[in-house]
């Protein structure tokens, strides 16, 4: 499509150039935050739209603490649901299911978490169960062995889907031996030797009130809930520990262009990531970066999706993202295309990176991206579950409601000139890192033109 034609069309479109300023004026609802005597941080927020309560708890027990035992944090979090010291797994499952409650535990890269949803009328019983799961897990050996067997099959199955594997390969490429390079789910090789002894040790070392927080959001009276949570979680023994952060070390900077070529024999398409290092979660330019990324690869009309999908039909979708942790992060462009169109799709992507750096954003593009980011912001914090997650995220990354309440102001503060600086500083344009998952025999030659190639197989464990 010719750009002149588009501009003509847009001029005719009455709404596009109207002096519209999107102002959603979203403010975070009131909440209270306090600490129990044992050091556990508690957040309470009332929401009365439905008679339901949501809980989000966070523990300093993510995959960065795995050491060489990849998957240990993940299995420990999963095993929290294998019964408590006073209730075997089967009884626990039955009780949770009868209340139609959802209680899930999992580990991510930096932290572990519990999320729950239950009817307000069941709050006494549900909070009781949640506190037992957190404070008195049984780590039953028979249940653990069954779980491990399922997980090992699941780890083999993951290797059948490039979409599932791509981020793990990419983070390994960017972070290498740094704890952020660790694969959260573990690998067949590292999960196989794990036992309940490892799980129990990990739990004893990394689950403790001083490093943890719980957010409860929903249909309750705060005064009552404060009493209940104090009664139920007040007995969790404090340890006097402060969370160590093994990820608080710098990682080796990326060096030159590198390509990790992952062979998948039966691939019908190439799945690829292109990018470099990103930002840490507390970067002061975070909101501005989000606006610029919206323009580059964060929405349907972004440069990436427009060129790779709309103009050329090379893919169903292309996007760019910043994945941020406490001490650093990644930036990546991700998409997929048929084996035979791998080269033009990657070439177009590289051209767009150059275009972003050369042309930056003009006034209209900036206005559009700002309106979009502001307009799509409130639904991110609409439900009690989303709000509970937000509160524990605030605890983990040490920010407060000003992030929410100042969001619009921060978006509005971005100028064309500032956007240019943001692009130059944060959007990688050289020393690019590539993960290509596809049929190596058909894309190997082209891969060599992109950088120094390392080859592996999708069926091999990530080392």
């Amino acid at each position, binding site marked *: 499509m010719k750009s002149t*034609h*588009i501009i003509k*069309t*847009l001029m005719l*479109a009455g*709404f*596009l150039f109207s002096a*519209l300023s999107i*102002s*959603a004026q979203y403010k975070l609802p009131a909440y209270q935050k306090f600490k129990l005597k044992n050091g556990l941080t508690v957040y309470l927020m*009332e*929401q*009365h*739209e439905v*008679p*339901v309560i949501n809980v989000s708890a966070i523990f300093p027990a993510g995959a960065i603490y795995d050491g060489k035992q990849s998957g240990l944090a993940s299995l420990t979090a999963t095993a929290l649901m294998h019964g408590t010291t006073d209730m075997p*797994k*089967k009884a626990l*499952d039955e009780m*949770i*299911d*009868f*209340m*139609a409650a959802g209680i899930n535990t999992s580990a991510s890269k930096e932290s572990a978490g519990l999320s729950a*949803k239950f*009817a307000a009328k069941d709050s006494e019983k549900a909070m009781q169960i949640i506190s037992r799961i957190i404070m008195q897990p049984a780590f039953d050996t028979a249940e653990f062995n069954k779980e491990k067997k*399922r997980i090992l*099959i699941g780890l*083999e*199955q993951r*290797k059948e*889907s*490039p*979409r*599932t594997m791509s981020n793990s390969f990419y983070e390994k490429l960017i972070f290498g031996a740094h704890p952020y390079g660790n694969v959260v789910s573990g690998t067949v090789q590292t999960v196989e030797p794990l036992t309940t002894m490892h799980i129990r040790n990990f739990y004893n070392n990394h689950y403790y009130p001083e490093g943890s927080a719980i957010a409860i959001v929903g249909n309750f009276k705060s005064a009552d809930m404060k009493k209940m949570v104090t009664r139920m979680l007040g007995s969790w023994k404090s340890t006097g520990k402060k969370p160590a952060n093994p990820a608080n070390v710098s990682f080796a900077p990326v060096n030159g262009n590198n390509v990790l070529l992952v062979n998948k024999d*039966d691939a*019908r*398409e190439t799945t690829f990531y292109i990018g470099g290092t990103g930002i840490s979660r507390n970067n002061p330019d975070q909101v501005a970066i989000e606006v610029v990324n919206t323009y580059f690869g964060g*929405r*349907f*009309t972004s440069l990436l999706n*427009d060129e790779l999908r*709309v*103009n*050329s*039909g*090379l*893919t*169903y979708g292309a996007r760019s993202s910043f994945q941020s942790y406490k001490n650093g992060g990644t930036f990546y462009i991700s998409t*997929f295309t*048929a084996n035979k169109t791998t080269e033009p799709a990657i070439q177009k992507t590289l051209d767009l990176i150059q275009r972003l750096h050369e042309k930056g954003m003009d006034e209209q593009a900036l*206005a*559009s991206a700002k309106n*979009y980011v502001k*307009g*799509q912001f*409130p*639904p991110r*914090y*609409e439900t009690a579950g989303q709000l509970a997650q937000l509160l524990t995220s605030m605890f983990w990354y040490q920010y407060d409601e000003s992030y929410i309440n100042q969001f619009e102001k921060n978006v509005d503060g971005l100028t064309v000139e500032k956007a240019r600086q943001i692009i130059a500083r944060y959007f990688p344009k050289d020393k690019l890192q590539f993960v290509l998952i596809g049929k190596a025999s058909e894309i190997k030659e082209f891969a060599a033109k992109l950088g120094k190639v390392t080859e592996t197989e999708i069926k091999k464990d990530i080392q």
Partner: protein
Amino acid sequence: MIASAQMKPEDVKTFTLKNGMKFLVVEDFSIPNANMYLFYKAGSRNEHQGITGLSHFFEHMMFNGAKKYGPKAFDQTMEFNGGANNAYTTQNVTVYTNWFPASALEVMFDLESDRISSLSIDSAMVESERGVVLSERSTGLENSPWRVVIENIYATSFQEHPYHWSVMGYEDDMKNWKQSDLEKYFKTYYAPNNCVVVISGAVKMTDVKRLAEKYLEPIPAQPEPARVHITEPEQKGERRIMLQKDIAAPYIGIGFRTPETKHEDFYALTLLSDILTSGNSSRMNMELVQNKPLATMVQSSLGESFDPNLFLLYAVSADATKLNELEEGMYAVIRNIAENGVTETELQKVKNRKLMEFYGQIETINGKSDNLGTYELFFGDYKKMFNAPAAFNQVTVDDIKRVAGKYFKKSNRTVAIMQKNVD
């Protein structure tokens, strides 16, 4: 955020334009946003061989330019105004979803009115969009074996009815749609009288009505589309399919022929699905995943459907040498229910789950629009959404036993097994 009381049936306001386009409106000021969901009664069941996949392709083409907002302008205008959108196509319907700051409501009406009244099908856009849907199909196949398993079950269970082919269509049809096919499809199905619009959010009913009359009422109604007249003959005998793929653990999918959503057994079948596979304490999960362990997962589903469709069961084998035991185990669980029934406690458990699901559906403005539209189309009345918890409560243990016996016969099932080695 304003804490509001729980939604009631009278909170849904309705009106119908002179051209037959029906509106459901929910004023909800909990966030300063709103949405607009347009449900068209057009899906892959309205296709025939030669144009399979066209409904889904058309869903894509609806974003590719009309008279006022030309190619790309629909999305550019929407995003400039803070809105985002998506769309999906099923066997039965095509649904367009717009999410936007409430202040942009009029823009949404202008955009929708333009593409419904005067879509322009640009041949260059048809070609590039064809590449997009081929990539969509390919990436689905690349990343999940389930798609192939399910497509094969439908292709085998339905031999005459259009549920025989997938929503995505046959690859050769995808490469062969003609401009004239698209034009005819548009005129037939994208008529205001074939559409239900649901709007929820920080908007006033009076504004919605005024804008609907201004932008959408002038669009003329069209003759009713032809009825899908094919009824799939009764299945008389088990059908089995073997599929080869280089996968770590065998997959098994089983489809039992079951009636359409409006049928009186739909509620009992839905609860049976939960009794079988929802939660660790569900029958199949307990028996085949937690206790034995023959499977790493079991799931079931029964989607909303205009015509008789399938109750699907899925499992991933935990031990390839015991695949037969897994399959027989799944049948044994259902046979046990058909012979001995379920307990009152078990039934109450899944009724409790349905109530929690209902709260989940009305917790967001998107949940409200999506579910009101779904009930209006598939159950014939949006008010049935509010009745759902009560309708589920009326199901008895005898109903569960009866439907387990009635539909889960060997002769009524189609089984697909995917594994590494097939003979």
